[in-house]
Structure formats: structure tokens, C-alpha cells
């Protein structure tokens, strides 16, 4: 795949690779998104706005320049903005690949950091030289003001020009609690929402503090995603219940929505309110809530790719990856998209819905698709 190096949220030539419930793959233009939806579907997006979570400053005990990337918090409470977990780099900025960034100075609990108008203290080391928890000084309003003035969006070297805040806020962005953009939401603009209304497709949001996607350190990357707080409103919980009762599909826009919904619905029923998503989703995770995921194009080995394995078989994902590569799909946050329907499982798979008769029908249909599109196994 090719790295998308321009911060365009909805390029007119954006592509979408669709994998349906029987594993059939098709190539489509991504717009209009409503073409992939059916009346009665419920589309759920993450409405978190993106914090300017990259903060340059100085490690005061050594005088060494550092870049702090805020990476996590415990809750979404308005006043709870003092304490964050953070990845710390030595000198430099996004122009250098994270893998090549120098380590930060050796940090100890109690060390003070001067971060532009903000001051912070290292609270704990979190088992890796780059990962700490820190505490900002001042009132909540002062911390918001300092971040707003001094912080910049977290950015990686595949985009050479500095990102502006409007590059990383989705059109529906609300509470500023994401550390990196919930970028699947770039797909949705107000026109797309209007088309959904017209097609009797429902729309709802969750707020999920999307964490960082890369630390530049393979060992630390294995710990991703970190714990992420989320909030599900009563209205969204009701919409999910209604959609399921009416036989509609739950379409999650992005991996963060899957993580929030599957965490809130882990006991079968969606609990509205705030929660902390701590689970990892992979090939063995039964999906209890989400039927379809819209996501970016992800490389095997990343935590995002692992999550996709909950939706469809490894063989199908391998074929999808081949298709993405051979058709020059773009990757990363401003790249193209995949839409994956949860695969109908065989009866021996455990969490299936399909009976043997439906399975036989599907095999027949699949054969037809194979002839037409040539990409089914």
C-alpha cells in the first residue's frame, strides 16, 4: 500500500474495499457512503475531537529538549484533565520517523517538565523508558488553555507538512478527548448524514478517547491499544436496542467504536454511561454488538489489523491485503477504506447465526460472485 501523504479527509478518488459476510471482495469508490447502507441500519461514529496532544518542552532536571505525546487518561470527566499517560521522545519532531527518534533523558518520578505555558511533573514510570504518567499543574481551565495554545496534533513522518487542527477534526467532532483522530470518521460529512436520513439509515455517536497508533518502539507497540475511556449516551443505547430488535445492522465507523461498543455490550446488553475499554479484540473475540466495520486499510501485525480478524477469516483478510496492495490502495489516517461485514460462521465456530441450510445457499451465491468478481475463495 501507499502512504497517504496529504491531509485530505475526503479526496474525491477515495476507494473502499468491501468484504461481505460471505467473504466476497469488491472494489468501490468510497463516496457516496450511503450506497453501502440499507434502510434500518444504524451507523455509529466516534464523535471525539482530536486534542493537540503533542507538546514540545524541556525536561528540567537535565535541560534536555523533549516532545511529550499525551496518550491516555482514566476518564472523560471534564475536570479530570490533570493526569495523563504519555510517550516521551528526545529532541526532534514529526519530520523524523518515530522509529528513529532519540530516547528522552532518563526520567524519574518527581521530575518537572516545562511545556510552553504548561508545567507538569512525572508521576510514575510505566515500565518503559518512553512511557510515563504525568500531572499538569494549574486549574482545568488553565490546562485546556495551555494545550489549546501550545499543543499540536500528533503527527507522523509520512505527512511532510504540519497538520492544522482542522485537518484532524472529523466533521462531526465534539468533545476534545481523542489523542489521535478517529480517522474512519473522516469519511462522514454532513452531506453523508443527510443521505443517510433520506435512506432511513439511523445515525448515532459514541465518544471514545482514541489513543495513539504508534510509539516508534516495537516492544511498546505490543502494548497498544492502551486503556481508553468512552461514553455511550442513553440515546445511542436506545438506538442500538431498537435497531437490533428491528433486524438492522450495527455499522461501526472505526476500530474505536468497535472497542467501545463491544466493551459496553460484553454482557449482552449495551450499558449506557462511561466505561474504560481495556480489552484487546482479535480473531477469537466474539462480536456481540457490531455487524459491520468501516475502517482504514491496515497492515498485518498492527492492533487495528488484529481487530479486523474478529470480523472475518484470516484467509479472507489475506486476500483483502493482496487486493489492497495490487490495487494501490492508500494507507494511514488519510488513506482509503475497508468495509467488512462480520462473516457468517459455520455451525462449529460457536458464535454463529447461520444454519446449515443458509450456509448451503451462501455457498451457491458465493459461486456466482466468484464468477463475477473473481476474488472469492
Amino acid at each position, binding site marked *: 500500500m501507499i502512504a497517504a501523504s496529504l491531509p485530505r479527509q475526503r479526496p474525491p478518488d477515495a476507494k473502499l474495499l468491501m468484504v461481505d459476510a460471505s467473504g466476497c471482495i469488491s472494489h468501490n469508490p468510497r463516496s457516496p457512503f450511503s450506497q453501502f447502507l440499507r434502510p434500518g441500519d444504524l451507523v455509529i461514529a466516534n464523535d471525539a*475531537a482530536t486534542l493537540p496532544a503533542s507538546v514540545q518542552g524541556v525536561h528540567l532536571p537535565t535541560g534536555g529538549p523533549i516532545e511529550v505525546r499525551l496518550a491516555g487518561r482514566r476518564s472523560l470527566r471534564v475536570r479530570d484533565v490533570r493526569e495523563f499517560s504519555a510517550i516521551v521522545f528526545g529532541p526532534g519532531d514529526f519530520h523524523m520517523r518515530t522509529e528513529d527518534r532519540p530516547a528522552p533523558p532518563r526520567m524519574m518520578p518527581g521530575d518537572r517538565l516545562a511545556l510552553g505555558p504548561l508545567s507538569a511533573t512525572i508521576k510514575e514510570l510505566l515500565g518503559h523508558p518512553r512511557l510515563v504518567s504525568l500531572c499538569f499543574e494549574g486549574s482545568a481551565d488553565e490546562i*485546556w*488553555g495551555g494545550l*489549546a495554545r501550545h499543543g499540536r496534533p500528533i503527527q507522523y513522518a509520512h505527512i511532510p507538512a504540519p497538520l492544522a487542527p482542522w485537518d484532524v477534526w472529523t466533521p462531526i467532532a*465534539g468533545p476534545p478527548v481523542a489523542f489521535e483522530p478517529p480517522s474512519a470518521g473522516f469519511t462522514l460529512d454532513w452531506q453523508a*448524514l443527510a443521505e443517510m436520513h433520506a435512506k432511513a439509515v439511523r445515525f448515532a455517536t459514541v465518544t471514545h478517547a482514541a489513543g495513539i497508533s504508534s510509539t516508534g518502539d516495537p516492544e511498546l507497540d505490543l502494548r497498544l491499544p492502551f486503556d481508553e475511556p468512552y461514553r455511550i449516551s442513553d440515546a445511542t443505547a436506545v438506538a442500538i436496542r431498537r435497531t437490533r430488535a428491528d433486524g438492522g445492522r450495527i455499522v461501526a465507523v472505526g476500530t474505536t467504536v468497535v472497542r467501545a461498543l463491544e466493551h459496553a455490550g460484553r454482557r449482552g446488553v449495551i450499558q449506557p454511561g462511561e466505561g474504560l475499554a481495556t480489552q484487546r479484540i482479535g480473531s477469537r473475540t466474539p462480536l456481540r454488538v457490531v455487524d459491520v466495520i468501516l475502517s482504514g486499510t491496515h497492515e498485518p501485525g498492527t492492533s487495528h489489523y488484529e481487530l479486523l480478524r474478529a470480523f472475518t477469516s484470516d484467509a479472507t483478510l489475506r486476500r483483502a491485503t493482496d487486493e489492497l496492495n495490487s490495487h494501490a490502495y492508500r494507507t494511514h489516517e488519510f488513506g482509503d477504506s475497508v468495509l467488512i461485514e462480520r462473516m457468517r460462521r459455520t455451525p462449529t465456530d460457536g458464535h454463529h447465526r447461520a444454519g446449515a441450510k443458509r450456509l448451503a445457499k451462501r455457498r451457491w451465491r458465493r459461486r456466482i460472485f466468484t464468477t463475477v468478481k473473481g476474488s472469492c475463495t
Partner: protein
Amino acid sequence: MIVQSDPSAPIVDRNAHPARSTDPVVPLAGLRVAITGGTSGLGLALVQECLARGACVALVARGGERVQRVAREHRGSHGIVGDVSVKDDTYPIAMQITGELGGLDVLINNASDLGPTPLALLGDTACEDVERALATNVLGPFRLTKALLGALAASAREGRGAVVLNISSDAALNPYPLWGAYGASKAALHHLTRIWNEELVAEGIHLLSLDPGDMDTPMHALAVPGADPATLKRPEVAARELADSVAAALPVRADV
């Protein structure tokens, strides 16, 4: 008179129905309200009115010291320093509003620029004065509303309602000589409001363009230096009428 964004309605009849102190006050308890230009004149009166009705208020203005002072003096308010006429200030302002209030139910775009002072014939008006009036009175409200649209839509979906109030003027409809830069910018804002309101009906977001009337404010003193304050509306009276209109555009809530 408060006039809704109805093109056929007159916007000129100013003091016809001043609010009476005996009218019941509609509470705005628990609502999250942001007000630009919130440190003086009508903006400050709106801050006080909304706080008195139980709202949480974020006030935005350019002057750091004034913002701090007003925020300090008004319990329950949050002061945000920013200039709505500057594009780069948009997202820092929006982020602080939703961050500090935990979301947003009501946005009041009140900050305004008069154009040239003293007022001037259009032929004598510098381009820069028109640009500044448009940046503050049209582009500023457009950008801030756009940046906050997601938060407002979320509030509407959750049944809390969502209102954007853009402060208009009778100069938006009437061609008063000397009011060219201001009048043209307010006309643009008025029409922008009406179109956007149509577009957002399905999302449950209401946009209002209301004329508060000629008030005894620092801005009016700049425009008409010799005016007799006794002939002008008090900003507190206008603020009360505007708050009633905002409350009327929100869903009736069971919890208040």
C-alpha cells in the same frame, strides 16, 4: 422586539415589547452556553443572564486581562481568550469551549465589529475596515459554528437541544447610510443563519438571527457618540429577551 429569522418579519420595531420584570424567567439549568464578545455590552449581559438562569457559561473575548476578571467575578463561568476574526484562533476556542463545558448546547455569536469608526460613507470606507467587519461578523461566526457543529449535533441527538444564536441588527435589512460595512456584514450573517437553519433541521439544531435593538453599549457609543442613553434599551433587557428566545427554541425538559 426580538425577531426570528423570518424574512417577512420586520426587524425595526425595537422597544415595542420590553420584557417586564414580572414575566416568569425560563430556566436554563445545566445548559452549556458559549458567548463570544462576553466581556462587555450585550455579551456581558448575556453571560450574567445565562448564569442567573443556571447555565454553565464559557465566555470568549480578545483581552486576556478582562476575560480573567469577568470569569473571576462570575462564578460558574469559564474565560477563554481568543479572537473570532482570526482563523487560527477558531479551533483553540472551540476546543476550550467543549473541553471546559464538557459539550455544548447553545452558542451565541455576539462579538461584532462596527467597521470604520467614526462611521463613514462607503465611498470613504477603507477596504481593511470592511474586511475586518466581515471577518468578525460573518467568517468568525461561520467558522466557530462549523467547528462546534459536531458538539451541537450530539447535544441534539441526546435530546438536550441545540441552538446557535447569531446577534443581528436592523441594519441587516435596512440600508442606513453610514452603516455600510456593518450593515452588509450583518445582512450576510442573517442570510447565512437562515440557510444553515434550513440545512440543519433534520439534525435538530436551530439557528436564530435576532435583533436585540439599539442598546446603551460601548459599541453604540462608538457608532453614535452623542446618543441619549435614556432613548436606548438597556443591554440587560435585551439579554433577557434573547435568553427567552433561546429557551423557546430548546426542547421542553422534564428535569427543570
